C-alpha cells in the first residue's frame, strides 16, 4: 500500500477559454513536455467561482490551483478585476484552515503564452515538492484544533 506522501500531488489549472486554455493548447502545439499531474479545466471566466469553491477543492485533495485568467486581455468587462478580488479574499480563508496560501496562484496567461505556462507548471511542482500534499496541512490543522 502506497504511503500518502508517494501519492501523486495534483495541480488543478482553471484556464480561460480566451487565455490560459489556448495557452495550454499552444504548449501542446509546440510539443513541449511537462509534468502530467496537471489537470486543466476550461472556464469562461474564473469570476464565476466563489471563494468556497477554492476551499472546497483543497479540502477534496487538490494540492495546488493555478488560475490562468486572461488578465488585461479578458474579453469580459470587469471579470478580471472581480477574479482578482475573489482570489484575494480566498488567501486569508486558506490560512484560517491551515492551508498554505501559496497553493493558490492567479496568473495571466495569453493564447500563445507557452513559456509562461510551462514556468507556472514547473513553479507549482517545485512548490509542492517543498510543502507537500494539502491533506497533511489540513490534517495537522484539524489535529491542532482538536
Amino acid at each position, binding site marked *: 500500500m502506497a504511503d500518502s506522501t508517494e501519492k501523486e500531488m495534483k495541480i488543478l489549472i482553471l484556464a480561460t477559454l480566451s487565455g490560459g486554455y489556448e495557452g495550454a493548447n499552444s504548449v501542446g502545439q509546440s510539443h513541449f513536455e511537462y509534468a*502530467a499531474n496537471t489537470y486543466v479545466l476550461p472556464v469562461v471566466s474564473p469570476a464565476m467561482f466563489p471563494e468556497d469553491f477554492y476551499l472546497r477543492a483543497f479540502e477534496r485533495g487538490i494540492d495546488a490551483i493555478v488560475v490562468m485568467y486572461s488578465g488585461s486581455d479578458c474579453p469580459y468587462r470587469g471579470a478580471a478585476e472581480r477574479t482578482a478580488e475573489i482570489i484575494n479574499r480566498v488567501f486569508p480563508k486558506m490560512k484560517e484552515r491551515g492551508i498554505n496560501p501559496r497553493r493558490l496562484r492567479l496568473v495571466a496567461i495569453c493564447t500563445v503564452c507557452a513559456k509562461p505556462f510551462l514556468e507556472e507548471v514547473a513553479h507549482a511542482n517545485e512548490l509542492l515538492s517543498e510543502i507537500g500534499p494539502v491533506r497533511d496541512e489540513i490534517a495537522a490543522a484539524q489535529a491542532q484544533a482538536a
Partner: protein
Amino acid sequence: MTEKPENLIPQEPESAAQDEEEIRIGVYTCGCGGNISDVVDIEKTAEALSHMPNVVVSRTDAAMCSDGGQSLIEEDIKNLGINRVVIGSCKPALHRQTFRGAISRGGLNPYFYYHVGIREQDSWVHHDQPDEATKKAIRLMTTGVVKARMLEPLEPIRLPAEKHVLVIGGGLAGLRSALDMARHGLKVTLIEKTPFLGGRVAQLETLFPTEESARDLIRKLVDKVTNHPNVTVYTYAELVGMSGYVGDYHVKVLQHSRGVSDDMADAAIAGCTKEVPDEFNYGLTKRKVVYRAYPGCYPESPAVDWEHYEDGCVKVNGEPLHLEDQPKVWEFTVGGIVMATGFRPYEPYEGEYGYGVLPEVITLPQLIRLIGLTPEGQPLKWQGREVKNLAMVHCVGSRQIAGINKPQPDGQVNDYCSRVCCTAILHTAAELNKRFPGIRVFDLYQDIRTYGRGHEDYYTEASENNVLFMRYHNDELPEVEPAPAGEKRPLVVKVKDYLTWGEELEVPVDLVVLAVGIMPNPIEDLIHMLKISPGTDRFLLEVHPKLRPVETAVPGIVLAGTAQGPMNTQETNAAAAAAAVKMSALLGAGSVELEPFVAYVNPDKCEGLGECIKVCAYEDALTLRTVEVDGKQVQRAVVTPANCAGCGACVSACPNRAIDLRGWTLAQYEAMVDAIALGDMPALGG
C-alpha cells in the same frame, strides 16, 4: 501496464446520478491518427471509462472526426439510446461543430455533449511518460463523464446581425475585401489611418510576375471600391472604440480633417514652408506638411499632416493660413470587422550592414522608390554618383536566429521567412537590367525562394543576365565596410561564399541594398480593443491555418492580408477575398447564432437580493423584476440572454447559488474537481 482499467476510475461518492430520466453516456476516445494513440493507450482509456456509472458504451476510433467516427456516435444515439456524449480528442474548438452536427443527426440535442482535449493537453505534452499520459487521459475524461451527467438541452441564441462590415485598412487587402463584400451585397465601411488609400502596394512600381503597374492596379481597385454604392470610405480615420459582439459591434471612428478645402488646396501646398521626410519614398525625398501621397492618389484632395503641422507654416499670398484639425467622430453598428492593417518593412538597427552609418546602404523598398524617381533614360544615381554595381543582401530582418542576430527592442528576433523578398530582389534586378543596362548585381543569399508561379523565371534570367550569386551562412553574416581611401567604389562587401568553397570574397560596390523583411504594422491598441491575439511572430493569429484560416478567435473578426503574415500581391488578394466570403457567409442571412452559455436564474432559490446585479457589467443583462409568488409580490433577478455576455461574474456573487451559467454550471465544476481530486490511482507498471 498491469493495472486493471476499472481500478483507474476514481471512487465516486454514492450520491451520483439518481435522476428521473436514465442517463446513458457514450464515451468516445480518439486515436487522432496516432497523434493520441502513439502515447495514450486509448483502448485502456476506453475500457476504464466503460466502468463508470451511466457509461453505456465506451469506444475508440482512429479518427472520431471522420465520417465513420461520427456515424458511430449517430448509431449509438439511435440504437443504444445514448443521451450524453463525451469525446476525448483534439482541442475542443477544432471539431466542436463537427461533433455537434453528428449528435444532431443522431436526433439528440447537440448540447448533450462534452469534449475533453487529450491531444494538445495530454499526448502532445507527455510523450516521454506514456503511462502517466494514459492515467491523465482517463482522469480528464472522467471529468467529462461527471459533467455530462449534469448537462441540459440548450438552444443557440439567434440574434439579428447588421449586414454591415467595418474594414480596417485601405491597402490592397482592405480594398479587395471591401469590394468583394460589397459585391456580395453587404454594406461596407472602410477606414484608412493615413489620409490616402493604396497602402504599401502603391509604393511599388511594377508587380511580379505580370509586370503591370502597381499604382494602376491600386487605382483600378480604388475606383471600383469608391464607386460601389455599398461602400463608404473614411480616410485619415481610425477606430477608437468598440463594444458589442458578433452581428452587433458598436464602433466609434475618429476621422481627422484634411485641413484645407479643395479650392485652396494647391495654393496651400505651394505656400507650405515646412518639409518632412516623405514616407511614401521611404525618406529618400521630402514632402510638405500639406501634401498628396503621390500623383494620382485617392482622394485627390491633399491633407495636412497634423503630427508635423505648426501654426504659420502655411502661407497664402504671404499671409499665414491658420489650419485646424476638427476631427469628426462617426459611430455606427457593424456585424463584423475585417482586419487589413497590413505590414511595415523591417527597420534595420543602426550599423546593421552599415545601415544608418554608411550613406550608400539603403533598403530594397528605398531602391524601388529610387528607381521610380529616376526619369526614363537616365542612369541610376545615388548621392550624385552613378550606380554601376550594387550588392543585395537577403534576409535582413528575416530568418533571424536568437543568439546570432541582434534582438529588436522588444527582445524578439524575426525567426520567420518574409516570403516575398527573394522574388522581389530578383524582380528588381531584372528591372535594373532593363532600365540601366550594364548594371551588375551581387546577390548575397541563403536560399533563393522563388516559389510562385512565374517566379523561378526571374531566378533563371538573373543568373543569365546581370546577377552574380553568393551564398552566405546565417552564422557567418556578410559585412559591409567603407572602402579604403582612393578606391573607385565607396563600399566593400565581405562575404564568405559557400558557392566557391567558402572563399572569403571582398566585393567593391557603389550601393548596398538590404532586402528587409515584413513586419506587421504596430496595432497594439487595436489588438487590445478588439481582444484579438497576435502569434509569437507578432502577426495576427488565425484560429487554425487549415480549418479556419482567416478567422480570429473573436467571432465576427476576420483577417485579410499581411496583418496575418507575409504575402505577395496575389496572395494578399486571395486572402482578402477568402476573408470576404467568410464574412458574407456569417452575415449574409442577417442573423447570427450565439452560444446559449448565458446566465439563468433559479426562481426557487432567488430571494431578489440583487447581489448579481451589482457585479454585472453589462447593461440590461440582469434586472430585478417584481413577480407574484404564492400571492406575494416579490423581487426576482431576470436575465436578458441577448445582453448577457456569459462571463459568470454573477454566479460567484449570489449567496444563494440561485444564478448560474448555462453549460458551465458551478455544480458541474465541483463534480469535475471531485473527479480529479478523489480516488488515488495506484502507480502503474510497478
